[in-house]
């Protein structure tokens, strides 16, 4: 999960961390083969991503796309909310906001304004394992934004006043995203229960009482500990060659000295064995319909054995993604006990992945009935696995997804970023289609039995309750319009 600084950026959220998927524009022939049959994936499709390293240790990836004269420029730091010291939750995200303040070269609050004057767009986001900054500009502006990004990597200046003003902004951000939203509140409670010791239990945005005490010193300490070229990855996609990027990067980032105190192995407290399923019931008058959510703690792409994470991706697609999935068909189409049902595997974490299954309880049914049916669907996949047709459809979907994604250079930059920032290699990213194609029905059955383990799970029921203070019987205000202004 991640939080962006601005509000115009389409956001992934806590409940749906970005999926780990793979490469860029595949050669035409490879795509044709992929679309026809997965067997041909045995021949690994070539990628046009290039990787090299600067002398100071900064990793660089370039993915050319010459269709439009624009580039997406991103710097990813190998630090996120799960790297925060205890008691200062939210500092990674807070620092991300503060990175837009000033340096000796960039006047107070001017960073984004300069990018705007260049005809560009910028933003940043923070997750548990990564913090990333990006600009989208026409190609001739690339050296300028690289210089600005290299500058703030080590030259950030903060004053008390702007830190405290910005602290109010992140508190408002928390109100918008979490406090005003019962689903988000329950999600926080569920994550706090899903992880026992590991910091994934703490929300990226931070606990409110800790956010309210974050100080300039907290921010600068965190900055100096984690921000350096040897703890960063530069990703440039768009109308540019690797050679051009290399020379621009050497002239900007290359001038920033490595910091040997930064970039140590990321060792977080890990969870003990999970021995009992946990349950939550969260009541809120603002909850809408009753809904049921289950999270499982599972391995991520980084921690799973080869093929296991891919099997979980395919398993969850077959089990719960979309209207042809087993759980949707069972709950929504056949038994009509839910008005919606879905699920996914989120495998991009450095230390753990999660599996989520959610359903909205239809009028006339109950959370107990729906949960029993979800458990029946899980029991069935454990015992009988999936059909060949289901598996082929799921594979086809994953492979097509990234052909479609190759249309978008910004999406490509994120795909590489999310993978490399947790230590996966370019080769691993690029072999994703092969790895998906190799998964067998038996692998999925094994994954179901290994990872859909109720002892490693949290089940939450969100229940709308009447609020004594909220005139439950009054008619809804303005029933005459449900259209948001668009």
């Amino acid at each position: 999960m991640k939080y962006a600084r601005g509000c115009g950026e389409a956001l992934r959220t806590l409940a749906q961390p970005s999926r780990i998927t793979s490469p860029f524009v595949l050669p035409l022939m490879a795509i044709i083969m992929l679309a026809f049959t997965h067997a041909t994936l045995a021949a690994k499709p070539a990628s046009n991503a290039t990787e090299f390293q600067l002398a100071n240790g900064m990793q660089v990836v370039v993915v050319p796309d010459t269709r439009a004269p624009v580039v997406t420029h991103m710097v990813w730091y190998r630090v996120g909310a799960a790297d925060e010291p205890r008691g200062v939750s939210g500092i990674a995200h807070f620092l991300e906001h503060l990175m837009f303040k000033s340096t000796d070269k960039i006047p107070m609050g001017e960073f984004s304004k300069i990018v705007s004057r260049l005809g560009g767009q910028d933003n940043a986001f923070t997750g548990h394992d990564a913090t990333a900054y990006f600009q989208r500009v026409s190609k001739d502006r690339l050296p300028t934004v690289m210089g600005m990004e290299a500058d703030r990597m080590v030259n950030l200046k903060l004053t008390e006043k702007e830190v405290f003003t910005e602290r109010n902004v992140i508190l408002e951000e928390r109100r918008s995203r979490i406090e005003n939203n019962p689903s988000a509140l329950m999600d926080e409670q569920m994550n706090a229960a899903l992880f026992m010791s590991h910091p994934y239990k703490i929300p990226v945005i931070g606990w409110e009482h800790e956010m309210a005490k974050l100080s300039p010193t907290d921010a600068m300490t965190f900055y100096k500990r984690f921000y350096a070229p040897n703890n960063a990855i530069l990703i440039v996609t768009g109308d540019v060659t690797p050679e051009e990027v290399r020379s621009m990067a050497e002239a900007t980032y290359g001038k920033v000295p490595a910091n040997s105190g930064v970039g140590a192995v990321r060792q977080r407290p890990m969870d003990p064995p999970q021995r009992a399923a946990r349950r939550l019931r969260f009541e809120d008058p603002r909850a809408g319909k009753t809904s049921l959510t289950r999270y499982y703690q599972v391995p991520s792409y980084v921690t799973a054995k080869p093929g296991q994470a891919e099997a979980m991706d395919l398993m969850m697609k077959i089990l719960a993604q979309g209207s042809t999935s087993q759980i949707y068909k069972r709950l929504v189409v056949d038994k009509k006990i839910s008005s919606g049902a879905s699920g996914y595997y989120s495998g991009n974490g450095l230390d753990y992945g999660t599996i989520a299954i959610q359903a909205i309880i239809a009028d006339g049914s109950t959370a107990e009935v729906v949960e029993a049916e979800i458990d029946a669907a899980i029991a069935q996949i454990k015992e009988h696995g999936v059909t060949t047709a289901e598996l082929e459809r799921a594979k086809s979907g994953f492979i097509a997804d990234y052909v479609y994604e190759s249309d978008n250079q910004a999406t490509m930059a994120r795909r590489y970023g999310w993978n490399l920032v947790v230590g996966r290699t370019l080769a691993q990213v690029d072999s994703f289609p092969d790895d998906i194609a190799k998964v067998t029905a038996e692998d999925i059955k094994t994954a179901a039995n290994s990872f859909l383990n109720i002892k490693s799970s949290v089940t939450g029921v969100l229940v709308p309750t009447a609020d004594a203070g909220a005139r439950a019987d009054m008619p809804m205000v303005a029933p005459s319009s449900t259209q948001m202004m668009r």
Partner: protein
Amino acid sequence: MSVVSLRDPGRIIRAYLRFDIAASLAVTVLFSLVALIRPAYAMKIESVKSPGGIEAWLVEEHRVPMLALRFGFAGGNSQDPAGKEGLANFITGMMDEGAGDLTSEQFQQRMEEIAMRMSFEDGKDTLSGNFETLTVNRDKGLELLKLALTKPRFDPDAIERVREQLQAGLVYAARDPEKVAGQAWSATAFKGHAYGRPANGTKDSLAAITRDDLLAFHKKTFAKSNLKVVAVGDITAEDLGKLLDTVFGEIPAKAELAAVAQTKIAAGSQQVIEMNVPQSVAVFGLPAMARKDDDFMPAFVMNQILGGGGFASRLMEEVREKRGLAYGVYSYLQPYKSASIFAGSVATKNESIAQSLDVIRSEFKRMAENGPTETELKNAKSYLTGSYALRFDTNSKIASQLLGLLQDDYGIDYVEKRNAQVEAVTMADIKRVAAKLLKNDDLIVTIVGKPANLPVTATTAAPKG
């Protein structure tokens, strides 16, 4: 919005996590307005006419083996009959629920097998479709698209399933301060007009919609006379011509649309709808000029400076950067066919929402009285002209941009002309338009929450689920 998102409770639930109004409005507004800006590079737009007489715009791009089609049927949810509000939105949720001989399940499985993407969306004035296919599966994808457009089944079972999802969506929307604020604002601003009615319906109106209503709406709306098509991607003009006849050749020649009257936005007012949340959400707006009014472009540039330009805008500077009052604050200019609005939103803790609104009003006043500085105007133009290429860097973005222009009846050369119009906007233009547009007395303000120091005018339900 499409019902597709309702099928996925995760997405419904997750939607609560986003800065919804901000994200969706900002994106919509960028999309609809940046279409005015000319790409920096030679993007060749071609006008194509099929042998059967159907016209489309085409941008050939063979480097990625996929095709994006965007098409729109004039009409949209302002055509919903009285008492059947939500009908257009209902249709958008039914389009992949089976067609021809294919049941819902068969249709959806087929879509997955060939990795085709198809979705429909209803706006106030248009019902539009998005279609994407890999080149290798193009013919199979087009066959399904044609089936959906010409022979939707609207099976009773699927109707009831989608109805349940839409009803659930209403329950969630009624508890979402951003959505309640947006709804109430529209109901006030467009009182007595189709735009003021609920596009997603009400509990009663959804319950009243029948299969015959769906069939009738489908027949009246999905016709050649009100159709606009854009194709971007791996296809030649000749193949596109054939495609158009294949997919759209058999739909009715003439749409039967009800006239939607031009409307005036209501007079300025403020309402506070009480909801038990820690942060109040405010939506504010006033009447603006039509898309083809000479003052539209100056107003668009002015908005970039006032509240449309993210961190470069005055509202963001004054409300967020200087005072820390909000995470998001913005304004936008939105032309519809029958009325245009200049509007925006802010969310601030209950104790301080009144202060945020005071700051916003004083920025409206400052802009109306003094206009921007020369530097601000220069910077705004620099952004607007410099960032245009960012809107045209993917097939699907190009297709969306161009469909917007086609639907507003602009010519194929419009994109080029409009760039010069941004540059041509003068300080005098902006001052004149700002003074005319930004009248605080005209502001309709809707606040949802428990704001301190503001009188409550209504209460929300939080009705029993």
